[in-house]
């Protein structure tokens, strides 16, 4: 199982901040996102916006990054600290 986290506006829109997902044959972030979008609204449009960033094991990553069970994969909007 992989841990999936959602932060800030994204977490609010999806009404969840974390979940466990069995990745099966989802070997990249892109495939995981496809799977999440298949859930329908609001998932499909939230991930469609093109303004979602991803971190794999707490490192900024890209949608082509490889993922595996036991990874911590976080999705969030562009950051606004400082």
């Amino acid at each position, binding site marked *: 199982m992989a841990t999936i986290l959602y932060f800030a506006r994204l977490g609010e829109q999806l009404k969840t901040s974390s979940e466990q997902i069995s990745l099966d044959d989802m070997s990249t972030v892109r495939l995981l996102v496809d799977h999440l979008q298949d859930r329908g609204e609001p998932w499909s449009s939230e991930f469609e916006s093109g303004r979602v960033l991803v971190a794999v094991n*707490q490192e*900024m990553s890209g949608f082509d990054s490889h993922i595996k069970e036991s990874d911590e994969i976080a999705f969030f909007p562009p950051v*606004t600290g400082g």
Partner: protein
Amino acid sequence: MSRVCVQQEDFDVSRELQAICDGRTDIGATVTFVGLVRDLNLDDSVSAMTLQHYPGMTEKALHKIVSEASQRWEVQDATVIHRVGELSPSDQIVLVCIASSHRQDAFDACSFIMDYLKTRAPFWKKEMLKDGSSRWVDARESDDHAADRWKE
């Protein structure tokens, strides 16, 4: 040598500066940046602000930014403190304190750390407005441009 801290509590600038310089005679310059909560954003009156972050990744990201600055400039010591949770207008949000033997290194390292922090450290601001509504703050393109200028 550097210290990174993500905390709810306020910080004392002079105490942090003292901590960096204490017992050292090789520091020629310190540069300190303090970010504050503004009461006006996009023409709306902001009554309070909540800062969310990604515990674990935030600290790692800040350490990485400080370490990158230390590779580019002579940084003898650095302290970065970022507050999270509930904040009010005029509250201090962020502190970057740099010690170097030369002022230009201290200025540049401080500026670089703030520019990178604003585009790479996982913090998100939510503003509470005076009319009772709230909204997540949008990322600014100008912050991306500011960070881009450090690319070699």
